């Protein structure tokens, strides 16, 4: 009796072991990728996408999307330079024939040739933690988390001068011949910052501080010379909001009562999105920056679902809106292309946490 019983159990045990071994042979199948098809990019040949990666993981990448073939090169910087871009690429700025990748944790500004993605120079900024960059008249201005703003000459690629803004500067923009820097104070939890510093571009000295909402981050100017800032709030009772700064008086003049995590201005329109991590809900608004009116409460009209919007950019020529989806930062992202009517045209895969996108000729 025991014999029979044990043989049965034994067989069961070995079947389980065998099943386990069989499962091991079954490697996960790669998700089928859509066959690349050419897309319309206007006169642009393609776009570079800076994927932030994850902090402390050295996995920032620059993906290249080719409009003519519809193909993606996932990690173009590494393919070309035989080394990784570094840790937490936070911003990518295109200026002339060069791109400037601001790599936060690796503490450098990587100067890259646009034509072939070859590194020209790594400008080291030890301990400063660079965050965002903007260009003006042959210079690059870089905001750094240590409170400094760096002025880099685009010919010598040397740091020419350093100015001091407030706590943990994030967004940086130029309007009305002045430089604006958002002092997020993001590392001063719970006492986040609430000012934007204004610098004279000629003397590179601070003119004034403008009082804005809590935790200001993104900063962009429109065609009228207005500056828009989104203040992230405190992730608790102060919601993220978009505000308008009049650059003639250098004061905050308007608050838009819609949540804004990130935005992008193209011509007359500002595309605003928000993502609430506690509810995991997104919103997509469109603002007319000429009339300063919200003209759409839901930009995406065809029901395309974006799980975690992480970056936004507009093709300056045809007005296509590109939104990066980070999928809760769990794995590689996607970029969705919408026409200006809010219909998804196509989508492609990029690296982890796609944040900044630039269009190149």
């Amino acid at each position: 009796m025991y014999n029979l019983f044990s043989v049965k159990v034994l067989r069961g045990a070995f079947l389980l072991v065998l099943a386990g071994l069989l499962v091991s042979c079954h490697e996960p199948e790669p998700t089928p990728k859509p066959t690349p098809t050419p897309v319309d990019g206007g006169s642009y040949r393609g776009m570079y996408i800076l994927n932030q990666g994850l902090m402390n993981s050295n996995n920032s990448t620059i993906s290249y999307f080719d409009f003519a073939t519809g193909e993606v090169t996932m990690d173009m910087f590494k393919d070309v330079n035989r080394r990784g871009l570094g840790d937490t690429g936070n911003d990518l700025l295109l200026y002339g024939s060069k791109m400037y990748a601001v790599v936060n944790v690796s503490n450098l500004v990587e100067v890259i040739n646009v034509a072939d993605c070859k590194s020209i120079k790594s400008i080291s900024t030890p301990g400063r933690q660079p965050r965002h960059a903007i260009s003006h008249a042959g210079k690059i201005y870089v905001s750094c988390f240590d409170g400094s703003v760096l002025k880099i000459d685009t010919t010598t690629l040397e740091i020419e001068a350093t100015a001091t803004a407030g706590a943990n500067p994030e967004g940086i923009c130029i309007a009305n011949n002045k430089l604006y820097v958002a002092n997020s104070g993001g590392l001063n939890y719970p006492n986040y910052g609430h000012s934007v510093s204004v610098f004279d571009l000629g003397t590179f000295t601070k003119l004034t501080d403008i009082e804005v909402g809590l935790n200001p981050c993104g900063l962009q100017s429109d065609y009228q010379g207005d500056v828009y800032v989104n203040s992230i709030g405190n992730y608790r009772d102060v919601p993220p909001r978009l505000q308008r700064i009049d650059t003639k008086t250098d004061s905050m003049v308007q608050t838009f009562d819609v949540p804004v995590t990130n935005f992008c201005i193209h011509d007359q329109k500002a595309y605003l999105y928000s993502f609430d991590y506690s509810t995991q809900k997104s919103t997509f608004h469109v603002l007319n920056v000429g009339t300063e009116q919200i003209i759409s409460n839901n930009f995406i009209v065809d029901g395309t679902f974006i799980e975690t919007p992480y970056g936004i950019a507009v093709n300056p020529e045809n007005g296509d809106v590109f939104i990066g989806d980070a999928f809760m930062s769990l794995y590689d992202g996607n970029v969705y292309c919408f026409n200006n009517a809010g219909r998804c045209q196509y989508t492609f895969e990029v690296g982890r946490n796609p944040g900044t996108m630039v269009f190149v000729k």
Partner: protein
Amino acid sequence: MKRCLFLITFLLCCFAGSLYSQEDTVTKVHHLKEVGVVVEKNSDKGQSVPVQVLPYEKLQALPAVQLSDALKFMSGVVVKDYGGVGGLKTVAVRGFGAQHTAVAYDGIAASDCQTGQIDLSRFMLGNTESVSLNSGSDDYIFLPARLFASSSVLNIKTVRPVFEDNKPVNLKAELAGGSFGYISPSLLLENRIAKRKSDGKPLVTSSIYANYLYSKGNYPFTIYDGGAGDSTSSERRTNSDVRAMTGEANIYVHFNTFSELHLKGYFYYSNRGLPGPIIYYTTQNDNRLWDRNGFVQVSYYNYFTPKFAYQVNAKFNDAWQRYLDPHYLNEAGKLDNEYRQQEYYLSNAFWYHPHRLISLSLANDLLYNDMQSNLPDFVEPGRFTSLTSLSAFFDSRHVDVRASVLHTFVYNHAKRGEAAPKVSRFSPSASVVVRPWLSEHFYIRMFYKNIFRLPTFNDLYYRDVGSVNLKPENTHQVDLGVEYHKRFFSQKMNLFVSADGYYNRVDNKIVAIPVRNLFFWSMYNFGKVEIGGVDAQLTYSYQIIEPLAVELSANYSFQHAVDKTDKNSKIYNHQIPYTPRHSGSGVFTVRTKWIDVAYTLIVSGARYSMPQNNEANFMPAYTDHSLLLAHEFDLRKVKLGLKFELLNLANKHYEVIRYYPMQGRSFRARLTLTY
């Protein structure tokens, strides 16, 4: 009613206990204690759950200084080692996160309510008698309820004083040193304070253990700026130093064979650099961590009658931690955070043996945890937990069956802000072991266990991003295994083999996700993981002639641990991070008259550092070979032990956790004086 009965029996026994003639019980008690305490692989009982034991002699043959080193030689275990002596070391058993493994130190669980995981680098093996790892619940049911409340239990038993030839004092002094500034002296002193009048055996004994450890940890490594074949640079680990002190005092009162009181005081202090991950193109790493932990615990048991026993365990634990980032870019220009937590613990357990075949156990554990910090607006959370377990064990010649149910009640509160909701849950587990032929030590076992882990204080309350609405992470385990041991040639040759296949599931896995920017992370109940695995072990030993013996032990683990959260995601069916499909270890020991030699091998298959199984996250397989040489000189009253370890012989530079390089080739030497 049952409790009332127990109480009456208990009171009666208090008076009657000493009058009993307990000849028969001795074997039973010892048997039970053995099962619970040190399960010898060749003991007569097969276990209904997989138990892996590293007894003292085995630990000595391993290149192990810290507990985590020893666990690398167990199957189904992934030791997450952040490199160096001071690097964090946690353990993942059978695909579950570190929070699912309880660590019991002399029978009482160690805890960290802030992170839920215990840093295993702090447990030094100098005074360790044995280390064992149970998956599922123990066959030995007379235990505190808390040891039923996790997926697996790691038991650390410290050395108990044993006095030979009427010697009242034992002394062991040790000095160890090695590469990269490693030095570690330790001392163990044991005293027999009083003898029993009745039989002359020790009544009161004590032991004191102290250990100091310093390691500079400035070992070399190579960075690959992209991947294998890409540009590289050779560097040295910086800010990897560690200074640690451990002190422990024990008092044992052996009232008689059936009852004992054990008092323990423990102190730990460490000050270490946090070298952090290797970051490309920058070297700044000057964060530091200080830990101070003290606890006192008391255990008392009494087998009042052959049918009834009682034990009480109590503990007070106080832990303090300081984290310093001297270059944090806030207004203060630094991050200097202190965390403090306390635990008050009381456990009562009753054991009742109404019939030759049946025993029952009822245990209740009460815990109170709280935590303070100098973080601004810190919520100061507290948690009251009551665990009640009821277990039954049926013990026959052919079949053993164990069944338990655990009830958990948790009440959370917070001084500021919202507290997490109450939890009340029942968690069942059952196991069975069958011995088909009494002539053979061949066993077939099967177990099922359902248990969960609570969100930690960090998960629930950390800054603005903790989430009080997190649900517990729920686990299911099913295991089917076989075990066989045999002794040949008048016990000179021993063979032990076991193999287990298992299926585990995790629901509501708690996952960290960055909030807007990568500086803020928040916790979500996001994942579902399924794990199918196999653990296999083999031990063979042969005493060829009296001083010459060989022993071989080998382990193999297979883990198919895959994400099952969302069919449409890019990681569905992908192997979870840091979990190799195949891994194993081997130890080969030769003992001769002149020298003992051990060769050890650790093998890990390829893994991924992130949930997505792509090239960017791929981490290659590695092997780690070590060689140990040891000899003991007998100098009449004193024994002098010498041990030399050559670690990572092949000088293979590998990482267990990505960008935390492990030490290359190095050596350690140890001198031990025993009186």
